């Protein structure tokens, strides 16, 4: 059995889960118009980290660990995130039964730009090196397990952590993930014409593309907990559409399979699910596909939300950010409204939240989908059996 022990979110709206969640409850939107020629020639909306605050927080953590090395922005985000999550647990990071799993799509990709090339050694742009830098900072003895599987990386990393804990390989796993907004990613999504000119509008009839965001997040899982309110990882799976590399399946096949397998592993029935945290990127195809997968599981009456209208699509961090938000929703028995959503714009009559809902949340589903036809799902419950 794997339990959720602690979590953290470093986002445009806060530097821990509680702070970020409080902002979401108040309806604050982290997505702003960015005017920065280093990223793009025109303004574009994105959810960005407060770099001054990041540097202050990082300095404090670096002093605590007596670390004087230079670190990239993403490394600082991940380190501050892990430190905050660790501080509320007894988990021993230097123990060989503790592993770190890192979820990222592009890591330190900004180092590839010609003007950044000389600031760090060449291999710093490689994702395994990022994993190495993180574990060396904390003195973890195990090679960091790096997962780079597009936008399902975060959910996949959590599923992998639980699987390794359940098999006895590790007692505790620190799942961390992050990606930054960079010229590389902004220009790529711009070339795809998939960015909305305004803050994104998940599941809405007027949705017109995604918003990018940067974030780091950490979730610590372990094989035991003293928490009175237990949050248990019940099941998780991934599946491929086997249909198209840059567009989701028309019948939601991969997502449907991932949810089905997660439900089987969790030994629950669909009627047990109290709330769904969708991927909800606000691209026309993704949201439509998710509505079909939800409908195929007869879950149309279950409240669904997407938090990408607040924090944007944080890529490799997204699955961890959104699972951490889901855990907080379960602790507070409160379902967030879907920022940007007004009128349902998908073909299936799913219940997208347009307001905050108070509801006992015992069992919840997290969905994710991404390029490469990849889909993932996981199920969290408050009860062990």
């Amino acid at each position, binding site marked *: 059995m794997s339990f959720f022990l602690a979590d953290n979110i470093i986002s445009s709206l806060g530097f821990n889960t509680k702070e970020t969640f409080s902002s979401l409850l108040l309806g604050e939107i982290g997505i702003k118009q960015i005017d920065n020629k280093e990223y793009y020639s025109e303004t574009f909306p994105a959810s960005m980290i407060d770099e001054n605050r990041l540097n202050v927080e990082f300095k404090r953590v670096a002093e605590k660990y007596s670390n004087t090395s230079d670190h990239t922005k993403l490394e600082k985000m991940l380190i501050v995130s892990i430190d905050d999550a660790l501080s509320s647990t007894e988990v021993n990071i230097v123990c060989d039964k503790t592993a770190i799993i890192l979820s990222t799509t592009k890591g330190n990709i900004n180092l590839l730009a010609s003007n950044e090339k000389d600031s760090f050694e060449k291999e710093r742009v490689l994702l395994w090196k990022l994993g190495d830098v993180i574990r060396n900072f904390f003195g973890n003895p195990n090679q960091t397990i790096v997962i780079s599987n597009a936008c399902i990386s975060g959910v996949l990393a959590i599923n992998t952590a639980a699987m390794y804990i359940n098999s006895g390989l590790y007692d505790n796993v620190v799942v961390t993930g992050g990606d930054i907004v960079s010229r590389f990613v902004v220009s790529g999504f711009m070339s795809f014409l998939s960015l909305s000119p305004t803050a994104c509008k998940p599941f809405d009839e007027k949705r017109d593309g995604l918003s990018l965001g940067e974030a780091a997040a950490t979730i610590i899982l372990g094989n035991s907990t003293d928490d009175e309110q237990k949050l248990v990882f019940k099941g998780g799976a*991934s599946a*491929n559409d086997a249909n198209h590399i840059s567009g989701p399946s028309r019948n939601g096949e991969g997502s449907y399979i991932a949810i089905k397998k997660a439900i089987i592993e969790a030994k629950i029935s669909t009627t047990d699910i109290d709330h769904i945290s969708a991927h909800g990127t606000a691209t026309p195809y993704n949201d439509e596909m998710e509505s079909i997968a939800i409908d195929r599981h007869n879950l149309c009456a279950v409240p669904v939300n997407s938090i990408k209208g607040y924090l944007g699509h944080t890529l490799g961090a997204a699955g961890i950010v959104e699972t951490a938000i889901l855990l907080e929703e379960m602790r507070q028995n409160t379902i967030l409204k879907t920022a940007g959503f007004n009128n349902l714009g998908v073909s299936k009559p799913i219940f997208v939240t347009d307001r905050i809902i108070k509801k006992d949340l015992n069992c919840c589903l997290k969905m994710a989908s991404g390029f490469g036809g990849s889909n993932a799902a996981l199920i969290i419950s408050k009860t062990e059996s």
Partner: protein
Amino acid sequence: MVDLKISRYCHIMDNKVFVDGSLRFEDRDAIGLKQFTKSIYRFLAPSYNKFFKMDEISRLGFLAAEVLLKDVDLTDYSSDEISVILSNSESTLLTDQNHQDSINDFDNFFPSPSVFVYTLPNIMIGEISIRHKFQGENTFFIVENFSADLIANHINNLFLTNKSKVFVGGLVNQSNDNYEAFVYLASDKGHLQHNALKIKSLYNNKIEY
């Protein structure tokens, strides 16, 4: 005890293709991965036009899977029971560099969606899954050196937790001056035990080629 077996494995390196340790194809004249993957494509003749849209590393992974799965009958399994678990050390560095070169300055700015989409290593898994209609688990790991322990353990766990019954596992890598693919097929049928020790020894066989 995990009852998962390896039935076939394939190496692609140094302008050569090996199946179960035996040389299957060679093109000594090919210069670089792009030329060599075209040679392999002509040799296999899969008649699959999507191949020519792929970046070089996806072509390498696609062809490694073609060789591995040639004449393999997986009709006993449903598509969601077949998984692809791959790894490498450089992610998609060369394609990343291509995209970066197209955006370095705004006076010469021509990012292409068909390049950008390949800047994710799991796109290769998507290409293999589309070709063979595999709908099981997907994971792409990034490790400095090929880790038989990581891949074997991950696949054994997916098998033991009933997530999947058939696996394509291994390594597909491309760096600035080299490339390498090592993939194997694991299922309940086969003659070699699926464990880290065995995978390590199959992988290290390449030294004797």
